[in-house]
């Protein structure tokens, strides 16, 4: 099915099941520990051996020699694979660094060997006996020292540099100006389930039971890396213990399990050890950003400029921190610029809302600062500079844009009018209290997605697609979609995901999964409805599918009758015309945060949080809300604690475990409020839905930062906002 013109009324609009806050259909499995994650699939293949990964102890250089003899002789060891004996390997298109390093080392903890043994304990002990001689080379690890050497680079979804009008002149002429520099640190996905894979060869065919967000990408990538035909690789990933972008691309666990299994001639399972993950896998790259805003005295933006610097390994990508600045606020004269420096740290890559997450951290502080300079309420300043069209191409409207409504609704619900605009004036016992807000913005992406739907003679509808559920609720919204389309209760729908043998879906990333994968299921259901209607002698245009029956006029036939002779199935995909070119599709929101800052110690506690989002039709308000509050939580982490600390001499992230890399815990997060505005977006798909999971993180950290400023009067522009950055300037309070 090709989606080329705005959606009209369709069976989804009945909203019998779609749009209802039903509990996750996979919930009882998750709550009882019976949902099978990659490493624990004892049942899929017999005789599994254990792999343990060895990471490089240097950041850059080469391996002069490896002594494997003691490790090989250790009890239980079956095989040791290194770049030396792995055979020819290619690098996949999606990875920047090689998954198995050696002799050249590209980054610290790059995998250099996997030890396969009968047991985990034996593999771990033997791995300690490998002796490696390294030749260390000088590397570049300090982004701030490389700004002059950084080069222009495109960003995902657009050019790195843009210019409209005459920014320089307009900024120079603006009566009120802001020119500020911000920084965001390297951040880790730190999903709870480590990257893990069980690999088994059957002749030249490889099966990987793994933990991966994008099944089709990784099937192709693994084939490329191993130099085998794509048809010979199967991936199965029904449950994924979190990803956040960290499981978009193949990682060392999958490759080393495959190589280990080939060498040991039996199935091998590998999980990346937690302390290895932070330097071995990808991370959100640090940015340094400069934002300039010029405005008239009555608060109209006339010039807005956003520049961003980030670093990556040679051949890597720049963080797209400037991307939202092209679309979020009005202003005739505008520019963005993206510069990429070469760094020898681990590979920087996508993490939840790549680009907007870091960009909004800076931009939404800048907007708060500008509002203060102008003496305008920061909510009103944002509303004053709203635009209903793409500011670079005014002929191109937004499909839906309810930013103003989000801000106004949030302000009312949060009690914004009680905020004292003078910072450092509100006291609650030992706490200085402040309120802050930020806009939320993230684009909605359209990408094709396929599914197969089968009706069997017992009336059960089974959906199969290689879509993944990384905690997003895919199982549930896909079941809701099929139930709505086929007119059956939710209990009568089975959903099977994550197997590369199923039709290729959008996968999970870029908040595109929900809308696109359900639209693919919609397309397959439309086809199945036509087949069923025809078989039962209905005109498919008139047939209604309700309550387990097909009806038209006075005639009603039980749905399962269409499958009486053994089942009926249809496969189709949603693909998109140029509708996304004609209309800018984005999602919007507003974040509100109240913090308390200890007047003596500057300890920061988040006291209240609210998000208001407008993101198309909300397919399941319960799971969608969870996406947003989870993103708000990660946003608090970004604001107050998350930072991969770079050792600039040795070249690695020092705090590479879950004790050193601090993420929010229960005690850090208060009760969170979340409200969706009513919206359907007929430009997005027949589902009229958009993404929401990444919108939820965009702007949160800035709302926290603005609240801290409101509480204390101390403006911190370098994340995370820790008490040491506040202490010296804290207001003098007796």
């Amino acid at each position, binding site marked *: 099915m090709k989606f080329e013109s705005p959606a009209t009324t369709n069976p989804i609009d009945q909203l019998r099941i779609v749009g209802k806050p039903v509990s996750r259909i996979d919930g009882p499995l998750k709550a009882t520990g019976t949902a099978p994650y990659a490493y624990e699939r004892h049942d899929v293949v017999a005789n599994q051996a254990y792999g343990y990964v060895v990471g490089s102890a240097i950041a850059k250089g080469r391996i002069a020699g490896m002594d494997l003899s003691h490790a090989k002789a250790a*009890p239980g060891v079956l095989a040791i694979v290194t770049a030396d004996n792995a055979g020819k390997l290619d690098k996949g298109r999606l990875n920047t660094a090689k998954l198995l390093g050696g002799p050249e080392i590209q980054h610290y903890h790059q995998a250099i060997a996997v030890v396969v043994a009968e047991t985990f304990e034996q593999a771990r002990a033997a791995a300690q006996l490998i002796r490696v001689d390294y030749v260390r080379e000088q590397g570049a690890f300090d982004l701030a020292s490389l700004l002059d050497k950084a080069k222009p680079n495109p960003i995902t979804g657009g050019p790195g540099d843009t210019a409209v009008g005459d920014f320089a002149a307009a900024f120079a002429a603006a009566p009120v100006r802001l020119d500020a520099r911000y920084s965001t640190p390297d951040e880790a996905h730190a999903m709870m389930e480590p990257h893990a894979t069980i690999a088994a060869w059957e002749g030249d065919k490889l099966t990987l039971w793994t933990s991966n967000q994008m099944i089709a990408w990784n099937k192709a990538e693994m084939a490329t890396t191993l130099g085998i035909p794509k048809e010979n690789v199967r991936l199965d990933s029904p449950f994924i213990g*979190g990803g956040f972008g960290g499981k978009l691309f193949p990682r060392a666990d999958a490759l080393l399990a495959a190589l280990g299994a080939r060498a040991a001639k039996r199935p091998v399972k590998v999980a990346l050890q937690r302390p290895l993950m932070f330097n071995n896998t990808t991370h959100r790259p640090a940015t340094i950003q400069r934002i300039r805003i010029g405005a008239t005295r009555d608060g109209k933006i006339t010039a807005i400029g956003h520049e961003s610097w980030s670093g990556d390994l040679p051949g890597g990508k720049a963080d797209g921190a400037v991307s939202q600045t092209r679309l979020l606020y009005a202003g005739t004269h505008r520019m963005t610029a993206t510069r990429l420096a070469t760094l020898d740290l681990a590979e920087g890559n996508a993490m939840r809302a790549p680009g907007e997450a870091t960009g909004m951290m800076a931009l939404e502080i800048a907007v708060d600062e500008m509002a203060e300079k102008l003496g305008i309420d920061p909510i009103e300043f944002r509303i004053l500079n709203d635009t209903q069209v793409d500011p670079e191409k005014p002929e191109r409207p937004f499909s839906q844009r309810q930013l103003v409504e989000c801000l106004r609704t949030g302000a009312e619900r949060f009690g914004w009018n009680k905020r004292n605009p003078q910072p450092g004036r509100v006291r609650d016992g030992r706490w200085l209290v402040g309120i802050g807000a930020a806009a939320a913005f993230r684009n909605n992406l359209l990408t094709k997605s396929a599914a197969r739907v089968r009706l069997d003679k017992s009336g059960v509808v089974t959906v199969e697609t290689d879509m993944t559920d990384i*905690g997003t609720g895919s199982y549930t919204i896909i079941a809701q979609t099929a139930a709505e389309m086929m007119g059956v209760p939710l209990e009568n729908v089975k959903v099977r995901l994550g197997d590369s043998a199923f039709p290729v879906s959008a996968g999970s990333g870029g908040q595109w999964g929900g809308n696109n994968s359900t639209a693919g299921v919609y397309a397959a259901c439309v086809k199945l409805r036509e087949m069923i209607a025809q078989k039962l002698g209905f005109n498919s245009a008139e047939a209604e599918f309700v309550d387990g029956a097909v009806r038209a006029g006075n005639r009603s036939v039980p749905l399962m009758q269409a499958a009486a002779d053994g089942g009926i199935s249809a496969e189709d995909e949603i693909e998109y015309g140029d509708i996304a070119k004609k209309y800018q599709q984005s999602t919007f929101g507003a974040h509100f945060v109240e913090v308390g800052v200890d007047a003596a110690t500057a300890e920061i506690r988040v006291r209240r949080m609210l998000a208001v989002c407008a993101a198309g039709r909300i397919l399941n308000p319960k799971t969608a809300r969870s996406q947003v509050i989870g993103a708000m939580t990660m946003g608090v982490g970004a604001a107050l604690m998350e930072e991969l600390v770079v050792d600039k001499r040795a070249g690695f992230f020092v705090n590479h*475990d879950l004790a050193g890399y601090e993420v929010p815990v229960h005690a850090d997060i208060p009760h969170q409020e979340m409200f969706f505005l009513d919206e359907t977006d007929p430009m997005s798909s027949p589902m009229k839905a958009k993404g929401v999971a990444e919108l939820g993180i965009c702007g949160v950290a800035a709302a926290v930062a603005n609240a801290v400023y409101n509480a204390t009067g101390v403006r911190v522009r370098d994340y995370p906002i820790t008490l040491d950055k506040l202490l010296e300037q804290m207001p003098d309070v007796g």
Partner: protein
Amino acid sequence: MQGPSDFDLSRRKLLLGTAASVAFGAAPPVANAQTPVAPAQAAPQAVPMSKVSFNVNGRPREVTLDTRTTLLDALREHLHLTGSKKGCDHGQCGACTVISGGRRINSCLTLAVMHEGDEIRTIEGLGTPENLHPMQAAFVKHDGYQCGYCTPGQICSAVAVLDEIKAGIPSHVSADLNAPAQLTNAELRERMSGNICRCGAYSNIAEAISEVAGRPA
């Protein structure tokens, strides 16, 4: 109910236990990838094996294990009770939380052979998909998870937390160590803070626990 002096005693016991396991770990010759050290003997050492018996979810189990096997790996890899999760293998995330002798522990931080005769309860011992424990049902109702990987640990912790409060065991945020522990919002959040949920379901988890505890979140 346990008083402060009992608590002191158990802390001393814990320290002794820690020292013992350090000595144990330091005994065999160790080399690693960064510091080349010639192993003392070239011939393969025999793997030290030991038999251990404990009761898991009401069922007596006996396993012969490499003595280095953690309780977590004994459960996951040997008994195929994979509900307890390995998130970090270092006691930093709480995904492996099980209940041993009525108290929650990080099963990755304890060797299986240290649990001879113990009563161990894992997520599988609380309920099944068809017959959920009230805490499991509350997590489903309140969407107290997303990816589900930390969930078994969160639920085991939550069940044990309510028992700890009932037993009067104080926490870091208890204002008065001599007064009965209170089931406050701050107490729940503090006590649950050893269980990380990167998906960020904390607000929903707090609602689920509060419902089971019979108080507002």
